[in-house]
């Protein structure tokens, strides 16, 4: 009789169910996110292999005035620009710059912003007030204006562009981290960590931040898109990656004078920016849905 009423034994799985796996299962259901993921993967691969396909000197920067301003053809898929350079090669190669600037800028913003935000949220008081007011000032300035100021102060270079865009996109990270920390700080498991004698700094690192990570990741993904736009804007204004590097923004800028007759000069770099930002936003939205605990059962 005993044996009959015993509940059926659950297969002995001591294996940890990874958190990443769960996120992936959620993400997989989202068509937009998958499209975004495929596109971003394509862009990353492009960025990685373009130096293998194209020679920077010969294919990207060398002028070839005989072939200038050709319409798209089998030889030049996206046509050639006013210096006779192949637009397709330059757009592909440009992926490297845009992705690098976007990612590095966001990493800078992430590192500084999360640290400040976590400190503000956990310490509180005057310290929090100062950080948040500075944050207010930063976010009241248009981020491009801010980046222009930074670049003009530090000089034109790819690294400075990354720093400028990074600083300009810091404020949202401070805010989001602070808000997340404030919510998590009140949870009982934080108190419980204190009750076992854990030091405050360690509590922030082991209990508070890991529980804020999902919101920060979503924000970071969306912000990479914004950073790519900001970088392109600066390059468009001549403050970004110096010529003759094939940055999408500077390509737009260079092609702008020919927009009536040779619109493909601006069309393809423009499309590239749009595609990159769109795909990152799709992933960001998908991640937000996948990570949001309220949508989970």
């Amino acid at each position, binding site marked *: 009789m005993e044996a009959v009423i015993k509940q059926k034994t659950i297969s002995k799985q001591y294996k940890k*169910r990874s958190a990443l796996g769960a996120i992936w299962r959620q993400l997989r259901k989202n068509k937009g996110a998958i499209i975004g993921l495929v596109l971003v993967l394509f862009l990353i691969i492009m960025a990685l292999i373009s130096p293998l396909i194209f020679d920077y000197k010969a294919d990207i920067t060398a002028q070839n005035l005989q072939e200038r301003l050709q319409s798209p053809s089998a030889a030049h898929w996206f046509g050639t620009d006013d210096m006779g350079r192949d637009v397709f090669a330059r757009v592909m190669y440009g992926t490297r710059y845009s992705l690098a600037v976007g990612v590095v800028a966001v990493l800078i913003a992430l590192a500084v912003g999360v640290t400040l935000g976590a400190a503000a949220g956990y310490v509180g008081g005057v310290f929090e007030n100062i950080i948040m007011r500075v944050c207010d000032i930063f976010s009241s300035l248009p981020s491009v204006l801010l980046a222009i100021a930074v670049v003009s102060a530090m000089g034109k270079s790819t690294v400075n562009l990354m720093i400028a865009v990074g600083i300009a996109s810091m404020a949202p990270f401070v805010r989001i981290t602070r808000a997340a920390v404030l919510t998590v700080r009140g949870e009982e498991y934080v108190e*419980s960590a204190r009750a076992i004698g854990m030091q405050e700094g360690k509590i922030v690192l082991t209990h508070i931040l890991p529980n804020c990570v999902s919101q920060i990741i979503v924000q970071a993904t969306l912000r990479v898109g914004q950073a790519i736009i900001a970088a392109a804007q600066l390059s468009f204004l001549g403050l970004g990656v110096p010529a003759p590097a094939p940055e999408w923004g500077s390509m737009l800028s260079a092609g702008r004078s020919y927009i009536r007759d040779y619109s493909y000069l601006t069309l393809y770099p423009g499309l590239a920016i749009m595609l990159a930002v769109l795909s990152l936003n799709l992933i960001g939205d998908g991640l937000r849905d996948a990570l949001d605990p309220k949508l989970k059962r």
Partner: protein
Amino acid sequence: MADTILEVRNLKKYFKTARGMLHAVDDISFTLERGKTLGLVGESGCGKSTTGRSILRLIEPSAGEVLFDGTDICKLSSGEMRKKRKDMQIIFQDPFSSLDPKKTVNQIISEPIRENRILTKKHAIEEKVLELMETVGLAERLINSYPHELDGGRRQRIGIARALAMQPKLIVCDEPVSALDVSIQAQILNLLKTLQEKMGLTYIFITHDLSVVNHFSNDIAVMYLGQIVEKAPAEELFANPIHPYTKALLSAIPVPDLSEKRQRISLKGEITSPINLPDACRFANRCFDCQDGCREGIPQLREVTPNHFVACFLHG
């Protein structure tokens, strides 16, 4: 003198709010013997949870002494206090928010062991975790589960295992069963009782549920607006409640028994705000026995019969 593990003297905790001083805990004193259970009963906002947390210094008390095994823990530096925490643990009310959702059962239970370097070898820690899981009745296979995969009762068992990991002497149980269903509640209460007998634990049992506290405690202290209004051994308190509030509280519990038709004492109104309290009996506004003298000064806790303390002008 009996073997006292904890003595609380004139403990106070005030919070500054926009509207004035909030008297969460207002001059509380009691002693607790080793291996016994003190039930701290009261309604929401009476300061029972704040008392529990102040005793553990999870909240800094505003004034007063907490003598744990003879040392006043309020005077310890934060480093010394961290060492002392091994001996005093807490079990939380909400098994959903008291476990870090990003950690596995293994990590949650082993954290206090690793943090205090009670054990350092990896397999020794794991053995200890498995032993603790067995003690609280968690199946071995759950060791790598996350809290959200488990039900409330099992989560509360994890919380208990975590508290036990450091072999504490005193555990503050802050409403450990009020979030659970009746049948699970009984399982956890039994577990806590068995553990007490086996490990000689001392409990402070904070709850709003008088029937639970009656089942569990040696002594019961009833709190109202930050003060203890009556304290007595459990049988005595249930048999001869003296303070009007205790009487009302006892009569308000719905009893699942048809044979018992009781006279219900209905209280007027609700708990008054604990901000900027006047120097009067805190219960005077709702008391059915209130006399003129009740609004002149705060009644002190007095021993009316042996071991039965009451803070009421009309008694003692």
